[in-house]
């Protein structure tokens, strides 16, 4: 048995550090390469603690840098990363990159830490992207023209190993440009298509029976109907939440089962003009209060089966706030601050784009891009009103909308100069008129 006479006291690295020792007769000096802590134990003359478990297995007592004490196997080795992490994905803002971590060894099993990093030139100045530590990363506006890589760290009690992926190419501008990229700062935006390149959330939360629940997102920037129909499993699916894509977190939801709109009927996604739609059979989705509505604009894509209903509203009573309204004459009305602005167009039984705008002291009702009516109004905030799709329960809890919705986008600012562009964007997607 050789006895170690000298060895590096700190940061022993298996396979690298040399142990100088002599044989038992003391007449031969040899250099040993440390290949494991077990070997270090075998040759070391310094006191070291070992523990034996109930089944006879021996463990070395080791101290981590943070003072944690662990019993580790005799064959423990520090981590080593044997292949580089690999990034895949499309290099455009709004796209999601994914990383496959590199292969690694180490006993005890190392802990993997991933950190996405950004650089101006792909060579130097790599800096951590705050919070980007998962296996996927949504490319944001700050990444445009930059380079991205992933730093992989493997750590166990014996040490750490780090490896960097190859840098991506230069990140390009967003390939997808949504309605809210062109016309931003919506107060609330609800759709079954993706409205913003950097929106990474879901479109809807659905349930089949009030017991189960699932979120449905987008594929190629449109509703993931395959996942939706798989969830419905041949039956119906009802929407409990329509997520706000504006970034304001003003989701609209319904927790009463019989008032949830339906989106899958007998296994098939409900649609209007070949695009998915929520069918509000006397359903409502209710959001939050706190909007500051004086100058505002609301754009709704709907197909009404009924007369006398309030498809979209934000009012605490009949004479405050605003709503979009289908009258007993089956005409479309904007009711703004107690004033009716009625069109002669009939919005029922066909897909329509309804626009309600208020700016200055005038209110306007548009149907399919055409001004239907206007009137003088006296704007006043109704900040206690809940935003609702499908009704105006604070005005009348029984006049609920019966028809389909595909999109509702609301701005709490003057959109008169953007109106044509917003309507064109919507119509280009839904092909309404």
């Amino acid at each position, binding site marked *: 048995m050789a006895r170690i006479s000298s060895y590096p006291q700190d940061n022993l690295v298996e396979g690298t550090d040399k142990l100088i020792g002599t044989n038992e007769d003391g007449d031969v000096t040899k250099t040993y390469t440390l290949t494991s802590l077990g070997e270090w134990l075998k040759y070391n003359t310094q006191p070291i603690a070992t523990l034996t478990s109930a089944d006879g297995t021996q463990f070395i007592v080791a101290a981590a840098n943070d003072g944690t004490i662990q019993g580790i196997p005799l064959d423990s080795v520090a981590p080593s990363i044997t292949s580089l992490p690999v990034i895949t994905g499309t290099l455009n803002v709004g796209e999601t990159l994914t990383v496959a971590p590199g292969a690694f060894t180490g006993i005890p099993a190392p802990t993997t830490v991933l950190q996405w990093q950004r650089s101006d030139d792909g060579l130097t100045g790599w800096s951590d992207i705050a919070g980007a530590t998962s296996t996927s990363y949504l490319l944001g506006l700050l990444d445009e023209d930059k380079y991205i890589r992933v730093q992989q760290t493997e750590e166990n009690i014996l040490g750490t190993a780090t490896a960097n992926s190859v840098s991506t190419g230069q990140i390009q501008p967003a390939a997808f440009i949504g309605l809210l990229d062109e016309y931003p700062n919506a107060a609330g935006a609800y759709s079954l298509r993706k409205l913003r390149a950097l929106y990474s959330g879901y479109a809807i939360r659905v349930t089949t029976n009030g*017991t189960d629940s699932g979120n449905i997102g987008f594929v190629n920037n449109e509703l993931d109907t395959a996942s939706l129909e798989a969830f419905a499993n041949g039956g119906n699916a009802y929407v409990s*939440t329509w997520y706000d894509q504006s970034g304001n977190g003003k989701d609209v939801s319904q*927790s*009463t089962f*019989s008032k949830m709109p339906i989106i899958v009927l007998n296994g098939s996604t409900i649609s209007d003009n070949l695009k998915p739609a929520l069918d509000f059979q006397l359903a409502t989705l209710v959001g939050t209060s706190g909007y500051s509505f004086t100058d505002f604009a609301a754009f709704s894509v709907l197909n009404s089966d009924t007369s006398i209903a309030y498809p979209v509203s934000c009012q605490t009573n009949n004479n405050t706030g605003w709503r979009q309204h289908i009258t007993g004459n089956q005409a479309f009305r904007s009711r703004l601050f107690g004033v009716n602005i009625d069109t002669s167009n009939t919005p029922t039984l066909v897909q329509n784009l309804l626009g309600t705008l208020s700016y200055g002291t005038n209110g306007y009702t548009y149907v399919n891009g055409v001004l239907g009516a206007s009137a003088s109004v006296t704007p006043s905030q109704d900040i206690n009103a809940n935003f609702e799709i499908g009704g105006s329960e604070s005005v009348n809890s029984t006049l609920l909308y019966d028809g389909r919705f595909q999109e509702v986008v609301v701005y709490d600012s003057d959109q008169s100069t953007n109106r044509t562009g917003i309507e064109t964007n919507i119509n280009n997607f839904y092909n309404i008129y």
Partner: protein
Amino acid sequence: MYYTSTNKADLEAYNKKVVWSENYDGVYTTDWAQVIEHPNGVDFAMLKHVNYGAELTLLETLSEDWFPGDII
């Protein structure tokens, strides 16, 4: 179809019966239906669940007098 009663609690109990029987998750789905109050302040109604009955008056639909007509 709707159940009606002059006792609002009867309809609330019917809702609880459906909620319990259907095993709603209590988070995203908390109720079966909401009580509808007649403008007369005396009568109440609730949508009937197709699978559950109750010893209450059953109506095919709610007549127009259930709906205020002054703001349509």
